C-alpha cells in the first residue's frame, strides 16, 4: 500500500511537471536537463553521447537546433523546444518528437540555450554520424571535410558504419580513404594501423602524406628513456641540431650548467672594473678575446676558456624521438612514405613538364612575331616587346567598354592584331625600310621607338598595373591529383601557341604571301624581277609579325600584370628563344622556346626559392650553349647560311 501510495505520489508529481504527451526525446533531454542548461565543455559529453546513441529519429534535429542556438527552455515547466521567431517578442515553439507547434510564447517566458563554441564543436562531432548518412550528398561531403579538418577518435566508428550504406561511389571512395587515415591515427591495435599504413603506400594525395608525416613527427631529446620510440642518433652540429640547441637541451635536462656567452662575460667584466683594471689586466689590453678570457677566469676561477658548448655536448646521447610510441607504426609509415615519395617525384616530374610546356608556350607566343621579323626578314625589332604591351593594353581598354569578359576577349584578340599590325606597318614604312642592310642601326632605331612607346604608355595609363581579367570559364585549374595540376589559362595559351604555329605554317607554306616572303628572303632582287614587290611583302610580313605580338600581348596580359614594362620583361627571353632555336626557322623557334621553358622550370625546381637565380643560371647556360651551336638548335648549313 505504501508502495502504491508513493508510486501514486510520484505519478502525480510527474503529471504535474510533465505534460502528458511528453515523448522519448523530451524524456531524454529532461534526464540530462541539468547538464544541458549549464552546458560546459568539460561536463556535457554524457548528454551529447546519450542523444547521439539514443537512436531516436529526432536526435539529429535536437543536436542541430542546439548547435544553432535554436533550442529554448520553457521556464514554467523546464521543457525543451525548438523555436521560431514570429515577431521580435514572440516565439513559436515546436515539439522535438512530433515536430508539431506547441504554441506561441512571449520571450520573457522562455530561455534560449546558448552553448559556447567548445560545446558547439562537440555537438558538431556528434552530429557527424547523422551527416555521414544524410540523404543530401553535399551534406555528406561537407561532413567528410569537417572530419578531415578536425578528426577525433570518436569519428572512426560512425564513419566505418556509414560506408556500407553509401550509394555514391565517389563519396564512398573518399569515405574509405578517410577511414584508412583515421584508422592509422586512432585505431587502438598496432597491426590494424600497420595494415592501414601499408594499404595507402601508393596514395600520393596531400592528406595521406600529411597523415604519414604527422606519424613521423619527432623531436630531438637528450638521453631519452628506453621506452621511447627512438630514431637515429644525432650528433650536435649536424643540420637539425645546432651545438647551442644541444647545449640548451642538456641545460634543460639539468645535466649541464649554463655557460656565460661572450656578451655576458663582457658584461661581467665591465661590472668589475677596478682602478682601470679587470682581474688584474689593464683595460686597454682587453681588446682581444684571449686577454678577456684571462680576465674573466681571474674573476671566476671555476671558468676556463676551454669550457665551450661544443666540448660539453660532444659524444652525448641525442636521439630523434617520435611522438608516436609504436616503433612498428613509425617504421611502416617511413617505408610507406618512401614509396610514396618515389611516386610523388614521378608526378612532380610530370607537373614540371606541364609547367615547362606552359612556359614554353608563353615564350613561343612572345617570340613567334620576333621570329618572323628577325628570322625571316633579318630585322631586329627591339620594339617587339612594346607591341606585346600594346596588345595587352588594347585588351584592357576593350574591357573598359565591354563588361562581358568572354566577349571582350573575343573582341580584343582581333583588335589587338589590327592595332599592332598598323603600328608595325607604320614603323616599317617610316623607319625600318630606310635601314635594311644595316642591322645594328635598325636595332638602335627600334630601341628608340621602344623607349618612346614605353613612356607614352606610362603617360597614358600610369605606372600602376592594369587588370586584364580572364573570363570566368578560364578560372580554375585542371587537377589530375594533388601534385599535378595546370590552370586553364595556361592550357588556353598552349592552345593559342599551337594555333599560331599552324597559322604561321599555313601562311608560309600555302599562301601567296608566304611564297613571296620566302622568295624575298632568299633573293630580293630575283624576287623583284619576277614581279614581286619586295616593299609590299616586307611591309606585310612585318605587320604580320607585329600583329602576332599584339595577340600574344592579350594572352600574356591575362596572367601577367599589364604595365608599361610588360614588353621589356619578355624581350630578352624572346630574343634568346629565337637565337637559341636558330634564326629563320619556325621549328627552331619552337625548339628554342621549349628548351628555354623547360630549362627555366628545371632550374627553378632545383632551387625553388629563387627565380632570379634561375634566370641568371639560364642565361649563363644559353651563353655556353651558343658555344656549341652558334647558329641555334636548328641551323641552316653551308653557304645558304650566308657567312
Amino acid at each position: 500500500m505504501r508502495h502504491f501510495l508513493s508510486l501514486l505520489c510520484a505519478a502525480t508529481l510527474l503529471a504535474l511537471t510533465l505534460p502528458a504527451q511528453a515523448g522519448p526525446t523530451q524524456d531524454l533531454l529532461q534526464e540530462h536537463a541539468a547538464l544541458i542548461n549549464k552546458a560546459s565543455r568539460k561536463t556535457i559529453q554524457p548528454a551529447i553521447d546519450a542523444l547521439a546513441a539514443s537512436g531516436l529519429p529526432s536526435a539529429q534535429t535536437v543536436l542541430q537546433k542546439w548547435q544553432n542556438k535554436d533550442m529554448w527552455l520553457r521556464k514554467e515547466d523546464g521543457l525543451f523546444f525548438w523555436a521560431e521567431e514570429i515577431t521580435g517578442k514572440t516565439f513559436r515553439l515546436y515539439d522535438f518528437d512530433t515536430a508539431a507547434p506547441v504554441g506561441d510564447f512571449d520571450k520573457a517566458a522562455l530561455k534560449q540555450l546558448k552553448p559556447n563554441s567548445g560545446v558547439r564543436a562537440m555537438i558538431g562531432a556528434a552530429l557527424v554520424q547523422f551527416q555521414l548518412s544524410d540523404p543530401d550528398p553535399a551534406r555528406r561531403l561537407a561532413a567528410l571535410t569537417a572530419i578531415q579538418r578536425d578528426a577525433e577518435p570518436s569519428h572512426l566508428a560512425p564513419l566505418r558504419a556509414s560506408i556500407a550504406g553509401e550509394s555514391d561511389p565517389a563519396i564512398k571512395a573518399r569515405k574509405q580513404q578517410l577511414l584508412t587515415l583515421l584508422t592509422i591515427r586512432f585505431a587502438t591495435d598496432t597491426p590494424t594501423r600497420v595494415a592501414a599504413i601499408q594499404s595507402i603506400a601508393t596514395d600520393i594525395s596531400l592528406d595521406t602524406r600529411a597523415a604519414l608525416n604527422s606519424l613521423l613527427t619527432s623531436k630531438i631529446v637528450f638521453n631519452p628513456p628506453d621506452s621511447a620510440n627512438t630514431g637515429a642518433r644525432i650528433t650536435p652540429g649536424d643540420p637539425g641540431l645546432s651545438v647551442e640547441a644541444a647545449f640548451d637541451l642538456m641545460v634543460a635536462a639539468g645535466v649541464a650548467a649554463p655557460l656565460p656567452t661572450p656578451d655576458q662575460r663582457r658584461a661581467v667584466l665591465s661590472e668589475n672594473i677596478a682602478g682601470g683594471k679587470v682581474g688584474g689586466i689593464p683595460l686597454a689590453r682587453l681588446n682581444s678575446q684571449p686577454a678577456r678570457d684571462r680576465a674573466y677566469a681571474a674573476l671566476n676561477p671555476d671558468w676556463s676558456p676551454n669550457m665551450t658548448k661544443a666540448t660539453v655536448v660532444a659524444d652525448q646521447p641525442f636521439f630523434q624521438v617520435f611522438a608516436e610510441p609504436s616503433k612498428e607504426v613509425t617504421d611502416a609509415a617511413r617505408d610507406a612514405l618512401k614509396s610514396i615519395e618515389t611516386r610523388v617525384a614521378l608526378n612532380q616530374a610530370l607537373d614540371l613538364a606541364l609547367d615547362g610546356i606552359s612556359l614554353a608556350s608563353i615564350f613561343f607566343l612572345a617570340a613567334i612575331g620576333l621570329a618572323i621579323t628577325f628570322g625571316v626578314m633579318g630585322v631586329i625589332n627591339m620594339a617587339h616587346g612594346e607591341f606585346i604591351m600594346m596588345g595587352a593594353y588594347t585588351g584592357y581598354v576593350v574591357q573598359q567598354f565591354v563588361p562581358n569578359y568572354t566577349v571582350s576577349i573575343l573582341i580584343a584578340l582581333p583588335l589587338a592584331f589590327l592595332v599592332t599590325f598598323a603600328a608595325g606597318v607604320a614603323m616599317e614604312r617610316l623607319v625600318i625600310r630606310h635601314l635594311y642592310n644595316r642591322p645594328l642601326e635598325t636595332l638602335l632605331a627600334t630601341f628608340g621607338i621602344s623607349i618612346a612607346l614605353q613612356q607614352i604608355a606610362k603617360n597614358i595609363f600610369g605606372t600602376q598595373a592594369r587588370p586584364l581579367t580572364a573570363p570566368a570559364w578560364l578560372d580554375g585549374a585542371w587537377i589530375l591529383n594533388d601534385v599535378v595540376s595546370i590552370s586553364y589559362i595556361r592550357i588556353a595559351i598552349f592552345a593559342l601557341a599551337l594555333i599560331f604555329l599552324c597559322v604561321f605554317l599555313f601562311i608560309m607554306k600555302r599562301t601567296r604571301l608566304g611564297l613571296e616572303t620566302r622568295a624575298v628572303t632568299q633573293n630580293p632582287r630575283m624576287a623583284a624581277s619576277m614581279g614581286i614587290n619586295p616593299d609590299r611583302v616586307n611591309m606585310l610580313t612585318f605587320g604580320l609579325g607585329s600583329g602576332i605580338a599584339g595577340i600574344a600581348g592579350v594572352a600574356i596580359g591575362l596572367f601577367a600584370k599589364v604595365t608599361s614594362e610588360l614588353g621589356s620583361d619578355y624581350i630578352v627571353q624572346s630574343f634568346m628563344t629565337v637565337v637559341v632555336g636558330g634564326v629563320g626557322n619556325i621549328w627552331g623557334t619552337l625548339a628554342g622556346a621549349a628548351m628555354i621553358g623547360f630549362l627555366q622550370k628545371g632550374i627553378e625546381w632545383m632551387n625553388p626559392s629563387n627565380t632570379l637565380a634561375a634566370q641568371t643560371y639560364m642565361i649563363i647556360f644559353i651563353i655556353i650553349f651558343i658555344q656549341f651551336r652558334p647558329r641555334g638548335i636548328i641551323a641552316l648549313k653551308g653557304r645558304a647560311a650566308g657567312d
Partner: protein
Amino acid sequence: MSTLLEVSGVSVSFDGFKAINNLSFQIGSAEMRAIIGPNGAGKTTFMDIITGKTKPDEGRVIWGEKSVSLLKMSEARIARAGVGRKFQRPTVFEDQSVFDNLLLALRKDRNPFAVLLYKRNAPDTEKVHDLAAQIGLSDQLERKSGELSHGQKQWLEIGMLLAQEPRLLLVDEPAAGMTPEEREHTTAILVEAARTRAVVVVEHDMEFVRRLNCRVTVLHEGAVLAEGSLDHVTSNKHVIDVYLGR
C-alpha cells in the same frame, strides 16, 4: 718541283648536296694553275676548304715541306702559314687609304700586342711604295680605297695579297668586270707572281685562261674532270659534254 699543297679525297656536303666529291688536287711551289668549271662545280667551296672557311666532311689537306694538315688550323693561321686569297668581289677596306690597306697586309707579326706597339718605319714604307708601283697605284696611295675604280680595287686587293708574301695565292675570278687593258695588266701581275710562288686562278673566261698559259684543272660536280694544258682539256670529250651539254 716539290709539292706545296696536296688535297686528297676531300668531300663536303651541304644539307645532303655534295658540293665537293672525293676531290684530289696538287700544286707545286712555283706554279700557275687555272681552275675552270661550270657554275656549281665547287670552285668556291674548294677555295673555302683550303682557306679553312669550310671544314670538309672527310679527306686531307696537306701543306708545305713539313706536311702539316690545314684542316685543324683557323683561317688566320692558314693565312699566316702562307695562303693568300682574293675574293670574287673586290674586298678592300674602303674606309682606309690605299697606303693603310697595303700596310695592313704587309707580312709582319700579326699578334695584337705587336701590332699595338708597331711603329711605321722606312723599310716598310718603302715596301708599300714598291707594291704600289707593281700594281700601278703609286699616285693613289693617300686616297681612300673606297674611291678607287672597280679595276683599281681589284689590283689593290692583288697588291694586298702580294704584300702578305704568300706561298700560295688563290685568286677568284680576277678579271671579272675589267676592261681589256685592265685584264692585260692583271695577267701580267699574276704571271709575275707565279715565278716565285704557287698561284691558283679560278676563272670562267677561257680567253683569260689562255693568256695565263698554264696547266688547267677542270672541275665538275665537285670532282676533277680533267687536267692538263688548255688545249688538252678543251679537246677532252667529257669537258666538251659538260660545257656544251649533251
